[in-house]
């Protein structure tokens, strides 16, 4: 009976894994199949010379460069806001918070992690309206407010990954630095965080993935169909996920839909590049720490 149950478990697990693998393969396959023909030379820069576009000498009107630049700027700004706050909160929860306060804060971040992004987007919109009333004509939907809202959205992933990573450090390693005379802050900085670097990088990768693909938040807080490369934090901007959303609902001909798939392929490629880079950095950081 036990043997049959073990066999059934293995069979079910293998089938589930195969099914998931096939679904991912199918998903990526469809994106590549539909998007690949759209990867024409002019897809990113249109008629503008790439160097002129990259140096911001000329605007790109018929390519995806502004949306790519907007997405990169948005993710960079989001992570700049979220990573320090997430690290600090995760450290606080793992190393300093105790008892009921810790349980309450942990529960709060778990609830936040499950918050639908449209709700966060609405909160961002409400903040925009308040700021617009306070500073009429100067602040409206913009890159900064989108980044703030997205940072709020990804914060629970960062906090919980840092907290869980720190809490899983073996006790003897945790006690090593204090046994040598280190204080708590030195122990966290010199031992615990470097020891958890791969797990923390994993949390950051998750957060980057969440921030780069989100559409609900940005469509309510600053992303538009046509704005060019964002020139300031208070400017509106274009973003690849919003472009894909917009094109899939508004396309006029099959060629335009194909551009949407090509944009999805680019977004996928950007995600892969960022994930690989983050993993490489984490591995390099954890295995090659110089004296």
């Amino acid at each position: 009976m036990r043997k049959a149950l073990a066999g059934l478990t293995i069979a079910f697990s293998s089938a589930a894994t195969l099914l998931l693998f096939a679904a991912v393969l199918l998903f990526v396959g469809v994106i590549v199949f539909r998007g690949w023909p759209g990867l024409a030379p002019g897809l990113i820069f249109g008629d503008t010379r790439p160097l002129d576009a990259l140096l911001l000498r000329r605007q790109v009107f018929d390519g995806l460069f502004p949306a790519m630049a907007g997405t990169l700027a948005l993710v960079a700004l989001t992570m700049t806001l979220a990573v320090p706050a997430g690290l600090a909160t995760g450290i606080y929860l793992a190393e300093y918070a105790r008892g009921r306060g810790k349980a309450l804060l942990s529960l709060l971040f778990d609830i936040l992690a499950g918050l639908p992004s449209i709700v966060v987007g609405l909160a961002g919109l409400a903040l925009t309206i308040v700021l617009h009333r306070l500073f009429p004509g100067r602040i409206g939907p913009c890159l900064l407010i989108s980044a703030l809202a997205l940072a709020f959205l990804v914060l629970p992933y960062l906090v919980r990954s840092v907290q869980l990573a720190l809490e899983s450090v073996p006790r003897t390693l945790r006690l090593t630095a204090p046994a040598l005379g280190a204080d708590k802050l030195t122990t966290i900085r010199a031992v615990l965080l470097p020891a958890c670097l791969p797990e923390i990088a994993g949390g950051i990768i998750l957060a980057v993935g969440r921030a780069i693909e989100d559409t609900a938040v940005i469509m309510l807080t600053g992303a538009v169909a046509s704005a060019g490369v964002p020139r300031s934090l208070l400017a509106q901007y274009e973003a690849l996920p919003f472009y894909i959303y917009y094109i899939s609902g508004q396309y006029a001909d099959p060629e335009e839909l194909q551009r949407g798939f090509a944009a999805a392929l680019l977004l996928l490629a950007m995600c892969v590049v960022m994930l690989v880079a983050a993993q490489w950095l984490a591995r390099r950081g954890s295995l090659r720490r110089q004296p």
Partner: protein
Amino acid sequence: MTTTMNGKIRTESLSFSYGERLLLEDISVEFADQAITAITGPSGTGKSTLLTVFNRLWEEIGGGPLHGQVLLRLEGRWQDIHAPEMPVSTLRRRVGMVFQTPNPLPMSLAANLAFPLKLAGIDDKEEIAARSREALRRVHLLAEVEDRLVSDARLLSGGQQQRLCLARALMLRPEVLLLDEPTSSLDPKACAGIEELLLELKESCAIVLVSHYQDQISRIADQVYLLGERTLLRQR
């Protein structure tokens, strides 16, 4: 209790609990300098806890309260390790500790060795390099790692990692060395190397060794105590 001329650590009516559970009760004992004192006994009786009492590491784990006194002979004078003039960081620099599991810090070999010195405010690169070589030589590791001091310490074998941890503990030239079953995760060859090393090291400090291995204790220990029923009984 009477004190001896070559005593290094002494407890007076020491009692220690973890919450409701009394682990050590009314222990008055003195461990000799330049000797290996072995503490043995069944699992869960508080041998490792007793070690953490001597460098106040239990305060990082939680536990207590601690009653009684723990004294350390420094510059010929017995000093209370809980006295305000003995900061805990100073105490831990004079009382080194090596754990059961090898625990290299997540950094290079050289950085592992430099870490305690930097904590103690010693930044001179030449001094750090000289002390590192000396410590590695003492633990018979220098020849094996001399050409890869900048590589990650976690890439060493288990025996090498444990010897590195011992070298790191020796960097500050401690007067007492606390060893919590330091050979339990090592193979017989590495274990023999550590034992030989401890016999050399005892010439310069007091060693308190927690060990389950009776043959090891009979080979290297000068004093042997059995911890059971919350108290220490001298066996040898």
